[in-house]
């Protein structure tokens, strides 16, 4: 039935991409213009000035002749426009044209750079080129996309993924962007692991550095010190477990209790995720440090000498659990809400009591959520950099070691790469363990069938500890944040506690000048940049993440395992490594984007994409496939099914992805510190500058302001995206 339909029409998707390919080749500037968002080139000599000329005109002028072979790949597809999809040639021609075009484009981009040929063997083969090229621009981008999607249409026509154009295109697109923006930089960076001290590559140096005592020593078992690898692992496991438990506690409290202040609790649990780095650390020092309020009070009461107990594992653990519980909560709430009450009602009908129901039905159905929450907590802890820096004491962890191997007095890039290697090994290991634990069971509970239940309350034996834990944690979080707000309002934190608004005035002063409002405060420039970057990257992250999740849960194709691995990889690599890797990879043609706002957007999209993927997978594995199947049976194609059936049911996951990526664009630091430039400075790097300069008041005031901005933005997003109404549960009085 569907085949008949698609054959009757001319293929609009095909025609679209053929046109796009030509526009990219013959109309838009082939090479990069100074600023991606600036269109000065239109009035500045385009289309003939060679910096802005499209590829076709360059060749016509006899320049950059290596771009010419792509013409063949653009002309070939014109031959198939009138052919039927079932025609054998249709698929073959598209595969050959798209594949050749794309391969040639990549090869010439990598092979010819700023100084002519990039590799000695190319010079040996062809002689000196005597010409050079800059990074690719709009034209190259569009033409490359056209080649890619012509190729995927070709494969689809040959029968891949049941001939589904949307799905093959989506797989091709995701694979390509992940390859370019995740694999390529990481491979470049890890190549540095094999660089020996005096230059050149050496396997034995690599091995001796990899099994260094400072990384793997088990001295702490016998009273000495352990290697950084064990430190990181131990910390990450603790953080993963604690955040998952706390996330579950809050999720249960919100969905399965008659707790009255759900709205306040929800706001409270989201608070730490929207806090810029260093601030929690500073607040914890002021509470529990040697001269901290709590330490001093306790020391006075019990007459003991105050100690520096907080520096080291306890401090990092407290700060990280505080910071990452919200992530676990965001994952758990989607899953806990998504468990269909019908199952629980069925259990109760069969005379199970509430405890039995919870233990044997609800909890096992939450397993994907538990596993994903643990994984995220584990990885976040491994990659966290701000908290260990402030509170680490002599408890060294991998992420800070990597940072200081690169920027510290050693300048040892290969050691950094090796530590990154170890870190990657742990995070990917966790990923495999998680998959093993989830196994092949089904966690589907939302089906197309009627679903009208209301979640039962928690069993009493569970609700008491849940209330106690949530209460304690809530009180602690409140104290920390009260301290932060207070800190932004006093003259000199920890010393002179006169109340003042000076810090806000310095940062956010607004005056009236000749041309209207003058943003005279010192923080405005980085503030607006941050807002802009966050606003652009959040929807992109959600889109890439959810499409990937859809492909992973709903489609079967070859290489799915490695596909999943690839999409998770960027999350497992600490930001510091990503930062340096991005500079190494994207400072030179073919993709030359360092120093632009674009590189910040891209780094956020691919750093945060795994959160969208995990949240999407967790939610989607609860939606029964029969929903898609009925939509497909009724004649919708897979894109329509995705848009009209799955997407609306995924609203919690969409909100999670949007919120997370928006927020992390405002709070992330480790990768950002390498990627900011004079024109695109971000608030976090500005805040660090203030902290380094003893300007705690200003740093905290700025952070506080950011917290309020993010709260407003998160609220707005939830309002815009809206909530999914599954059954009657929305009416059960969920405060929201």
């Amino acid at each position, binding site marked *: 039935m569907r085949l008949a339909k698609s054959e009757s029409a001319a293929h609009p998707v095909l025609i679209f991409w053929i046109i796009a390919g030509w526009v990219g080749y013959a109309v838009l500037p082939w090479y990069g213009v100074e600023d991606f968002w600036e269109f000065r080139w239109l009035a500045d000599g385009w289309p003939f000035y060679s910096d802005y000329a499209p590829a076709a005109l360059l060749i016509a002028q006899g320049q950059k002749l290596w771009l010419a072979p792509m013409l063949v790949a653009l002309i070939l597809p014109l031959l198939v426009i009138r052919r039927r999809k079932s025609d054998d040639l249709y698929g073959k021609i598209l595969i050959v044209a798209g594949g050749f075009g794309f391969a040639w484009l990549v090869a010439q981009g990598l092979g010819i750079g700023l100084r002519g040929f990039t590799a000695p063997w190319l010079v040996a083969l062809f002689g000196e080129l005597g010409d050079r090229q800059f990074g690719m621009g709009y034209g190259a981008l569009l033409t490359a996309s056209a080649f890619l999607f012509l190729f995927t249409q070709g494969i689809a026509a040959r029968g891949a993924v049941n001939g589904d154009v949307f799905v093959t295109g989506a797989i091709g697109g995701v694979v390509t962007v992940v390859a370019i923006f995740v694999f390529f930089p990481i491979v470049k960076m890890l190549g540095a692991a094999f660089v020996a*001290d005096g230059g050149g590559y050496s396997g034995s140096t690599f091995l001796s550095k990899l099994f260094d005592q400072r990384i793997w020593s088990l001295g702490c078992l016998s009273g000495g010190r352990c290697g950084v690898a064990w430190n990181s692992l131990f910390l990450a496991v603790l953080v993963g477990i604690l955040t998952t438990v706390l996330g579950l506690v809050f999720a249960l409290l919100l969905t399965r209790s008659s707790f009255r202040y759900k709205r306040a609790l929800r706001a409270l649990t989201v608070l730490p995720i929207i806090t810029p780095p260093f601030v929690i650390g500073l607040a914890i*020092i002021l509470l529990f440090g040697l001269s901290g309020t709590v330490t001093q009070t306790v020391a006075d009461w019990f007459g003991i000498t105050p100690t520096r107990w907080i520096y080291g594992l306890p401090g990092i653990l407290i700060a990280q659990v505080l910071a990452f519980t919200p992530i676990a909560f965001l994952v758990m709430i989607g899953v806990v809400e998504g468990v269909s009450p019908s199952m629980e009602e069925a259990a109760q009908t069969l005379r199970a009591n509430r405890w039995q129901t919870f233990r044997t039905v609800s909890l096992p159905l939450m397993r994907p959520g538990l596993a994903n929450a643990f994984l995220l907590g584990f990885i976040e802890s491994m990659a966290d950099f701000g908290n260990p820096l402030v509170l680490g004491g002599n408890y060294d962890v991998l992420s800070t070691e990597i940072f200081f191997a690169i*920027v*510290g*007095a050693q*300048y040892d890039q290969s050691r950094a790469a090796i530590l990154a290697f170890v870190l990657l090994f742990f995070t990917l290991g966790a990923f495999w363990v998680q998959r093993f634990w989830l196994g092949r069971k089904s966690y589907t509970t939302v089906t197309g069938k009627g679903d009208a239940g209301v979640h039962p309350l928690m069993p009493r034996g569970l609700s008491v500890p849940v209330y106690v834990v949530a209460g304690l944690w809530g009180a602690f979080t409140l104290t920390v944040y009260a301290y932060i707000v207070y800190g932004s309002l006093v003259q000199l934190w920890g010393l002179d506690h006169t109340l003042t608004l000076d810090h806000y005035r310095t940062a956010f002063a607004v005056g009236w000048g000749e041309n209207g409002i003058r943003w005279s405060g010192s923080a405005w420039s980085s503030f607006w940049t941050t807002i802009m970057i966050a606003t652009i990257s959040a929807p992109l992250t959600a889109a890439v993440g959810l499409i990937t999740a859809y492909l992973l849960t709903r489609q079967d194709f070859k290489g799915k395992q490695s596909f999943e691995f690839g999409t998770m990889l960027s999350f497992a690599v600490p930001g510091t490594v990503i930062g340096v890797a991005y500079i190494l990879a994207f400072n030179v043609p073919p993709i030359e984007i360092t120093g632009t706002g674009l590189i910040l957007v891209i780094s956020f999209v691919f750093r945060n994409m795994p959160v969208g993927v995990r949240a999407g997978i967790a939610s989607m594995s609860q939606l029964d496939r029969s929903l898609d199947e009925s939509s497909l049976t009724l004649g919708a194609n897979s894109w329509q099914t995705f848009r009209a059936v799955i997407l609306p049911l995924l609203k919690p996951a969409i909100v999670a992805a949007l919120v997370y990526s928006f927020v992390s664009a405002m709070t992330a630091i480790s990768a950002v*510190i390498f990627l900011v430039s004079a024109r695109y400075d971000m608030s976090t790097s500005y805040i660090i500058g203030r902290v380094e300069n*003893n300007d705690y008041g200003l740093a905290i005031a700025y952070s506080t302001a950011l917290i309020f901005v993010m709260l407003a933005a998160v609220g707005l997003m939830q309002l815009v995206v809206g909530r999914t109404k599954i059954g009657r549960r929305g009416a059960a009085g969920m405060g929201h």
Partner: protein
Amino acid sequence: MRYQFWAASIVALATIGTSSGAMAQGRLSFYCSAQEDWCQLMARSFEESSGIRVDMTRKSSGETYAQVKAEESNPRGDIWWGGTGDPHLQAAEEGLTEEYISPMRDQLHPWAIAQAESAGNRTIGIYSGALGFGFNRDLLASNNLPEPACWEDLTKPEFKGHVQMANPNSSGTAYTALATMVQLFGEEAGFDYMKRLHANVNQYTKSGSAPIKAAGQGETTVGIVFLHDAVATAVAGFPVSIVAPCEGTGYEIGSMSIIKGARNMDQAKAFYDWALSAEAQSLALQVNAFQVMSNMAAESSDLAPNMDLIKLIDYDFVKYGSSEERRRLLEKWDNDVSRLPQ
């Protein structure tokens, strides 16, 4: 034929196009490794005096070095100003920076010129600061400790758990301290000192100025840092006193380099000359930067440590700035000192 007609007209138009594609005039990409407000002030003041638009990026000198190295084949920055001298020397050693002899040279202190000559004129000193330590008066009193005045005082048993310094592996400041001890006491005695100090250290921080901030906040009693950082903490209002150790001490030279292959070379040189002038160097006082500036005519603060009264050692920047010696000392420190029980 039609094709030839097209080609001809395209070539004709292209020449017009080329001539109209004017380059943007007067920009400078400025990598700054000093404190934020100083960087801002330098950028703004240079814009005002020259009319050149400045794009400033502030990063620590280690981070900037990493970036300059990563960008080697396609430099984004034009000039790199500020931050301790070692990464500048390292960059010079690796040929990442450009040779330049400024006409302003004769106005500078001899140590600044010596620094430039040792690096083949690829970098130059703009300020210097001596190493020392600061202590928190309140904590010292509440723990009934005597006021320390010498390096040796810090190894006394009563200071156990009261001293903080940065990790030489991660911080240029702490590496300067290590190299200072080796030069001051000789290699054997220097390492012996580091071992005795190790017994009293409560934490090796990652960042060089963190110990004095911790001292200001009351999280440690003594912090080993550069004296100008200690002065800045004291001026910010924290109960911190500053000590220039009696045995003598080492120092750093904050430096400036032009990045090799800078896109805006003329502007970079204009900045270079301007930054060596007395007028530009006197700006430091406005932002509580208490280093000694390299121009002899630059104004200095009353609060700044008087370099004439500090016993400075003859610090060998070439030897102790070289990557070989650095690696050797750091490895030795790692194996012989940091692994000892505390």
